[in-house]
């Protein structure tokens, strides 16, 4: 026993020294920087030597909101078309290098992403540049992409969680131009013509308005050199004005009340809350509120799992765009427990709005959020996306490293004001997927 005490103290002492003597990089682990090129491109770079991989992403302010609602799906269709490989030789080269290409759209941005072994970065980059300079927009290729989008739309409908998230976005953000989903629906996809795609690419995919995000084990000079030599984009002299946010309404919105006829063993109950427009501050506040509300054991919503045992899944997801956002709490519960789950969760909301969060709750949530932020930024693909999207939306690339400071800067008063605004009954919308709720039962 005595020996154990002494050795434990020894271990503690070594650990203390280790932590105190650790270099400052622990707090600001990696510093992103911008790179200069000629012709000038907006490039942010971060060196990360944890893998011999380079992630190269282009973030274009050409997201869901930039196309009219009656052409919903155009943003995605254009992004996919921009990544169509024109020649069989290039397909062969990319494929044999193992390089991965992908594209997706968010509310405000379209993203073209390339992940490659760093040995093959230069060759892959040259092919990507040739694709972007001469996008292959043929009717046959567009039809193939449309078919794939139909599959994605169905897959999203088949996933209860994705379907509910889309219902929430449609409910809160349709008026801001974000409704209808990235894939659109049959009616809007059919309405999109080849010339729509070409015009969209011409207007929005201009190098002066893009942000390029690179995370690599290569050093900045190597990346800069390869960008200069291989990534030769043809730049128009006068970039077109960015399209204004779309105003035409979208016919694809799903039922904002959910689908009570859906047969699920475990109905999904969700509450959505509108968020203010995306700023550095609201970004931090929204993520912290999600952590506070349903961020695992000890959070107020967790009591529906422990001690009440009503749900296995208790969590919260945020979608945040320049024109607004939505935060959604998800619970999966048994068909016989839906009414009780709703009552208990309403009580959680009411109590939080009434009392706010305590200093202890806030401090715990802040520490968790810091750790979560760091662990999520480990994969290069996630870091590249965060850097690029922060740059493109005006939050700034320093946000990646200053997130901790932003959290520390939030006062409890500010947080409680934000919380009350978000969680108030007037700002909440409930969706239930999978069960018809008897109004009388809900009151009991």
């Amino acid at each position, binding site marked *: 026993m005595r020996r154990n005490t002494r050795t434990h103290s020894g271990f503690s002492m070594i650990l203390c020294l280790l932590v105190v003597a650790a270099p400052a990089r622990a707090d600001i682990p990696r510093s992103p920087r911008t790179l200069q090129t000629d012709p000038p491109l907006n490039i942010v770079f971060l060196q990360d030597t944890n893998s011999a991989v380079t992630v190269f992403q282009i973030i274009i302010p050409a997201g869901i909101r930039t196309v009219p609602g009656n052409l919903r799906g155009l943003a995605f269709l254009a992004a996919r078309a921009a990544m169509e490989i024109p020649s069989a030789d290039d397909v062969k080269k990319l494929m044999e290098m193992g390089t991965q290409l992908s594209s997706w759209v968010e509310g405000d941005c379209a993203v073209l992403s390339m992940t490659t072994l760093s040995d093959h970065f230069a060759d892959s980059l040259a092919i990507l540049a040739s694709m972007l300079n001469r996008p292959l927009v043929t009717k046959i290729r567009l039809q193939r992409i449309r078919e794939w989008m139909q599959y994605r739309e169905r897959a999203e409908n088949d996933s209860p969680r994705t379907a509910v998230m889309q219902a929430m976005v449609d409910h809160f953000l349709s008026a801001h131009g974000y409704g209808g989903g990235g894939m659109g629906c049959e009616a809007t996809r059919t309405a999109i013509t080849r010339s729509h795609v070409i015009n969209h690419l011409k207007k929005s995919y201009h190098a002066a308005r893009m942000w390029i995000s690179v995370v690599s084990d290569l050093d900045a000079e190597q990346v800069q050199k390869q960008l200069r030599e291989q990534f030769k984009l043809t730049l128009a002299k006068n970039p077109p004005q960015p399209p204004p946010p779309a105003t035409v309404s979208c016919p694809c919105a799903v039922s904002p009340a959910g689908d009570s006829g859906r047969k699920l*063993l475990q109905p999904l109950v969700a509450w959505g809350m509108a968020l203010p427009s995306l700023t550095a501050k609201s970004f931090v506040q929204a993520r912290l509120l999600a952590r506070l509300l349903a961020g695992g054991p000890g959070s107020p919503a967790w009591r529906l799992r422990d001690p009440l045992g009503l749900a296995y899944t208790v969590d919260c997801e945020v979608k945040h765009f320049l024109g607004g956002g939505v935060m959604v709490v998800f619970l999966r519960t048994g068909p016989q427990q839906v009414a009780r789950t709703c009552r208990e969760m309403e009580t959680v909301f009411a109590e939080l709005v009434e009392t706010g969060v305590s200093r202890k709750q806030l401090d715990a949530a802040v520490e968790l959020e810091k750790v979560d932020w760091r662990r999520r930024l480990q994969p290069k693909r996630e870091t590249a996306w965060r850097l690029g999207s922060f740059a493109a939306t005006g939050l700034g690339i320093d946000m990646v490293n200053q997130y901790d400071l932003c959290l520390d800067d939030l006062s409890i008063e500010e947080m409680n004001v934000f919380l009350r605004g978000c969680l108030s009954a007037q700002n909440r919308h409930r969706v239930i997927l999978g069960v018809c709720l008897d109004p009388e039962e809900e009151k009991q």
Partner: protein
Amino acid sequence: MRPGVSLLLVFSLLLCTWAENAEDSPFRAVILKNGIHALAEQFPDFPLVHLVVAIRAGSKYEPAVQRGISHLMEHLILFGKDNTGQSSFSERLRERGGFLNGHTDRDLVTLEITLPRSELEFVVGLAREMTFARRFFQKDLEREREIIRNETAEVQDNPELRGLFVMLNHLFSGHPYARSALGDVTALDSISVEEISRHYEALFRPERSAIVLVGDVEPEIVIAGIKERLGDVRVPAFANDRESVAVPPLPPLTESHVIERSMDVEQAHIWLGFRAPAYNHADRVTMRVLSQMLGQGGYSLLSASLSSRFQLVSAVSMNYQALEESGFAWIHMVLDPGHVKRARNEVMRFLKYFRTMDFSLRDLPPARRRGVFDFLATAENQLRLRSETGGEDGMDRALSYARFLLLNRLGKPKSFLERMSALSPSMLRGAAGDYLLKPPHVMVTVLPEKAR
């Protein structure tokens, strides 16, 4: 928390190729006198520590009448009250900014913690408390039973998982691997706290455990800490009754099975499952490359075959998971319900045809190589890429190490990349014949109930 299949999917897609390459990374590894495998690796850039405790306590060790006891025990360890009865580990971790998760698969139970680097001492102490000194309480048991009931139903609602569960059930019929690690809801109702405690004592023993810590700390410091905190855990002298429950041998799969299910979904799903090399089998790397070449990435052979003339399927993939007693490989297709019959025929036709295909430049004389797609070179580079990206996450690294420490029986094998580069096209054709073509298979189709 979410057992079995999620672990299989994540590991099979992201980690296993990296795990096979794990022995190349710099780390410190020891086996303590009591049998605990300990490993530490410095993972700089993020001020975090990722701890994994892995125990040979997966669902294959469960008595048939206690299906799900391992999963239930994992829940109780993570979310039950700690030994003081006052708070749970998860609550204590939250106060320190920590994340806690757990998985139960067919071979192992893993407990996973991420904390700030400054909490290293706490986390090593916690590993001991969770793994070798846990008490269980009736109230927690009742609650977690309900939670698992919810979890089981949730998985059944997922079209991506439901067919996979049915496939495994038939593929390993007559063996514990056939059972879902989630457990059986009826069996769970009859499990008592005493039985949980006995199961824990029998399986959570030092010689069945691995403790891995990956983080921004010196490996020597970590190993010293693990030795001091866990080196005196005693190996129980008694031969517990659970130890005598040896895992039965895997009976042969004597005939193919074709099964249909329906769900309230829009798209149909088809799973085509095969038995495949086990974790320590010499063909494991061959099978990994074969499944990559046939069904991973945008340029896979299956994708090209099933969508070349006509978009028969919306998505197709092939995966492979190596478990200790056996592996399994499966092709998963998502498609329009009207194409199901044709897709089933087409995939079987492709598998027969594959053995006659020239899929690598190494198959061809130099004069015939121009313009030919080299699917083998593609798969090798894709696996290199996956191996690299799979190692970017500290927790994924720790999980892979833990799995390797407990399941590897080959000593210090050659690295995955070395073994991969020694493969020839004829070896891949041979493996396709041995594992995908000749033996019986299991085909599961999930059809939409009706258009919603």
